């Protein structure tokens, strides 16, 4: 079962501490177990562009589509047997402490 893990910032989370950021260990552990299929950090929201097509016109707007203090900072694509396994994987990611993580299963059809 595939899950998309969205890594988000969160102003209410613990302050970021580079000394405790074990992201490399997390990546090699999850890659080694065949859980993490791929993933990456994303560039800052200042580099985001939002695209809409309305009628024949393509509208491009500077910035992300939602103006909030929280933004998506990265993502990982996971292969896990159950939601509980995906939760455990996400909880081990450093950004679960310094930000927050949303897990969404791939769409299964209605």
């Amino acid at each position: 079962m595939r899950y998309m893990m969205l890594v988000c910032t969160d102003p209410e989370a613990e302050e970021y501490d580079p000394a405790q950021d074990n992201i490399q260990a997390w990546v090699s552990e999850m890659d080694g177990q065949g859980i993490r299929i791929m993933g990456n950090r994303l560039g800052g929201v200042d580099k985001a562009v939002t695209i809409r097509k309305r009628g024949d016109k393509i509208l491009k707007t500077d910035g992300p589509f939602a103006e909030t203090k929280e933004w998506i900072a990265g993502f990982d694509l996971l292969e896990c047997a159950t939601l509980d396994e995906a939760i455990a994987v996400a909880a081990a990611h450093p950004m679960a402490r310094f930000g927050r993580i949303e897990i969404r299963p791939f769409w299964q059809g209605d």
Partner: protein
Amino acid sequence: MGEDGGAESLRLFIERLYREESRRVLATLIRLVGDIDLAEDSMHDAFASALAKWRLEGAPTNPRAWLVSAGRFKAIDSLRRRSRFNASLRELADRLEGQARARQGETEALFDDRLRLIFLCCHPALSLEAQVALTLRETCGLRTEEIARAFLVDGSTLAQRIVRAKAKIRDARIPYEVPTRREMSGRLDAVLRVIYLVYNEGYFASAGDALSREELSAEAIRLGRLLSELLPEGEVFGLLGLMLLNESRRCARSDADGDLILLDEQDRSLWSRELIAEGSSLAKRALASQDPGPYSIQAAIAAVHAEAQSAAATDWRRIAAYYDRLADKDPSPVVALNRAVAFAMRDGPSVGLELIDGILERGDLEGYHLAHAARADLCRRLGMNAEARRSYERALELAQQGPERRFLERRLLDLTVERHPAPALKGLKEE
């Protein structure tokens, strides 16, 4: 016994079996077929075919195992029928049939599947409303309309909630497992919260005119008993003890008109000795466990009340000490309020009033009618009638439940009557 008498007694036997065993059969079928809806339908089919089969062949020696096995094959049949439209269902049916044939004798689980079912229904990925609805439906076997009526929501809203929760279980793949030791404490909290919420909804109906809806409380107690059998741990005993001790006072807490009677004014001879004995012994057991949690401490407090011969004989020193421990475990404003009331009883109303004013100043309980009612009561005991009246009025603005409103109205009226024979009271001068 004639032909009809035999059929009638078989029908009664199967009805009893349904009441007593259907949840266990369902819990096992969910594990075997991997889908809640399919398991439910198959279980009903199995009970229906039992009526026809057992009439001819007589009831089997182990009816539950028979029902599980029949349900399992009904599920396979139903997948086969649907597989004409969906090839993946055929594979699933083949796989289930292979497993069923390979382990036909083995219908008894090593482990009680009902515990899995409780943890599934209370999975933290589901909303609290969904957890409550699913638990009552799948674990207790209540019908959707019954649950909707109990929580005063529209039947179709509740049905939707259940459908969405089941879809989430399936689509996000919430596992059908009992959590490991390491995850247990957080997951058990969710289960206990759901059971206590169901109990309280039956004890203090949050709106409407009936003071209690006994059936909901009875379901919660049944769940608590089941859980304490399956998972004998401190907090599980604590919660069951707490519910039983509250339950012991049910007959004494309202008068013939359904009006609320406070603990100190209740007729203690109406309290159920049997429930108190069971609840107190559970509370003791829970408190003796390593690092007792909030339910265990609350049960211990309830036991002190239950054991007091009269309101005046209540051991407030012990209760206040327990509230200190409770506030340590659960630093919520409602616990702080109850602690303030216990301190008022031990050290006098002015101590309690100071604590309550502090809590209200922080603003957490400004909208909670019982905080204002408690403040009003302390003011009344200090003779500050104007202050008391103001707080009773604020409590009345916030209270929603009929009997509680009538109680507050009575208290307000008493205050007005009292001021004439006692004009020298401090409260009058304050106006």
